[in-house]
């Protein structure tokens, strides 16, 4: 039995496996014991009520899913009164994912959800579905820093900034979040995408565009994880296309201290407990005593140089 514990800032997780926001809710208690997870991460909530986007809200493309759910939310009071108590008896830390339209609103909202029972706040500044053409805060370092800075002064809870694969300024955004006081980064949210039915010519999502997730996204978010882990000193949590234990290991090796499982839970609702079990088995088989022994161990040395020389 290897030591699966990992730390994200001041929080110790019993293992590095947790759900990705939007792919987890209390219904999963009917499939397995949620306390086996490293943490619980809620679906993103907004302060006010939102009804979400028109249907169809999901469609599949090769090896991936597109969604334009649009963050339907029953609002903060409903959440605090009805959803929060459901998780009271779990020992796994509860992470609340929140979204807002302005930095001020993010700050006020963070204050409101800083209540007992909440272990950290995931800052969803990267949903491609709720602003025009996916212009989320995490597209730009300035907007990212602004949101995190204001939230930092509004709450004592750890802030986990969920970044976007849609930006060309991955490192700058990550560093802006760190400088503004984020305690961890999540790499990453879905990637803005589109699908059209070739027979009818119609867009396959009611919202026209949506977020790509699933195995097809993994190489991109794995790359972001690597970039961010090198560029910041706060923990990075990998997210994107994880469905096998090899995926988990790749993210850890790239520098992630924990990982989130999203769309794979839709394909197999018992994915997360399986990954925890298999990660333990792999560490044992490799003679590694802890998850820490894998984190950030990516080998990028000799061979790459040799290949480059051959090409030249």
């Amino acid at each position: 039995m290897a030591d699966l514990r990992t730390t994200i800032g001041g929080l110790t997780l019993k293992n590095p496996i947790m759900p990705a926001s939007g792919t987890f809710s209390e219904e999963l208690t009917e499939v397995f014991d949620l306390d086996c997870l490293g943490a619980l991460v809620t679906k993103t909530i907004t302060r006010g009520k939102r009804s979400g986007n028109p249907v169809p809200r999901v469609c599949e493309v090769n090896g991936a899913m597109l969604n334009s759910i649009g963050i339907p939310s029953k609002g903060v009071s409903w959440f605090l009164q009805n959803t929060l108590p459901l998780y009271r008896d779990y020992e796994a830390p509860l992470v609340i994912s929140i979204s807002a339209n302005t930095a001020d609103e993010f700050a006020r909202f963070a204050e409101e959800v800083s209540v007992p029972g909440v272990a950290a706040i995931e800052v969803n500044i990267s949903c491609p579905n709720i602003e025009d053409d996916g212009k989320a805060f995490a597209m730009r370092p300035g907007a990212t820093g602004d949101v995190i800075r204001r939230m930092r002064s509004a709450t004592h809870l750890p802030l986990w900034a969920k970044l976007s694969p849609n930006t060309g300024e991955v490192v700058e955004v990550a560093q802006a979040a760190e400088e503004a006081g984020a305690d961890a980064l999540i790499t990453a949210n879905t990637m803005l995408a589109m699908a059209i039915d070739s027979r009818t010519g119609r867009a396959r999502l009611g919202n026209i565009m949506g977020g790509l997730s699933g195995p097809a996204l993994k190489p991109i978010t794995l790359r972001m994880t690597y970039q961010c882990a090198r560029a910041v000193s706060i923990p990075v949590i990998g997210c994107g296309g994880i469905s096998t234990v090899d995926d988990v290991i790749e993210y850890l090796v790239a520098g992630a201290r924990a990982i989130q499982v999203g769309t794979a839970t839709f394909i197999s609702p018992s994915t997360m407990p399986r990954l925890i079990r298999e990660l333990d088995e792999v560490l044992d088989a490799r003679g590694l005593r802890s998850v820490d022994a894998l984190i950030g161990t990516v080998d990028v040395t000799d061979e790459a140089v040799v290949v480059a020389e051959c090409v030249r």
Partner: protein
Amino acid sequence: MPASPCVVPDSIPHPYSIHEVECRVKTHDRVNGEYRRLVLSAPRSVLDCEPGQFFHLLCPQTEGFQPYLRRPMSIYSYDRIRGELSFLYKVAGTGTGALASLQPGEHLNIVGPLGRGFEIRREWRRPLLVARGVGLATLAPLASECARLGRPLTAICSARSPDLVMSTDLFRSFGAEVITVADAEGNSDVGSLTPLIEGLIRTRGIDAFFTCGSTRLMRMLQVIGSRHGIGGQVAVEQHMACGIGMCQACVRPFLRDGGAVNLRVCREGPVFDLHEVL
């Protein structure tokens, strides 16, 4: 620190009601030109089903079809004693196209049972089932349940042509009076069915409607039901991703407490009150 034993073995009683299991294909046959019946050997854990519930199927990857998401499919029959679960489906796209390739002896991964099924209320003594196309599959376990409860049953089965009307023998075996209608016969439209159904209300004392498979027929039953004060239930369909209530993809608007609310077809449904569907 030991990893938590997360998945409880099947032999230990546990509170988990949704199961992901691998089932062996027992038989897989064509029913007619369009429909197939898939019979699985299923463990006891997934056979506490209700009529109207569904399973989420991980259709295989084939040369021609590579479905990624699971496909929801309503239960055609379940038999706890024989350990059988069956589905009746029409090959209509990528998922069902892949499903059609399954051979006896191969395995299919299923998640379920899922959703809220039909409720035969105490006051509903003379139900009428109105099924169109593959909607028949969804209503078949309900017919069986009506027979078990001793409710005299009338069923209208509709399809494009008479040879595509399925399961009439099955419905008759449950003691149902079966009326078949078909587009090719010109007797399946709302104009023909309305007087037929209003006649059945008079002569048979029909006091509840159950339907699946056609929005047009559902609307017709809403109108007839409103006129005669008759309630009922409908099983609806929607694109799904997770099937268990997490993703909010499969919502539709329903009338609740005087206003329209989005409800999840996979969780609050797939069976809804006939008169609350908007």
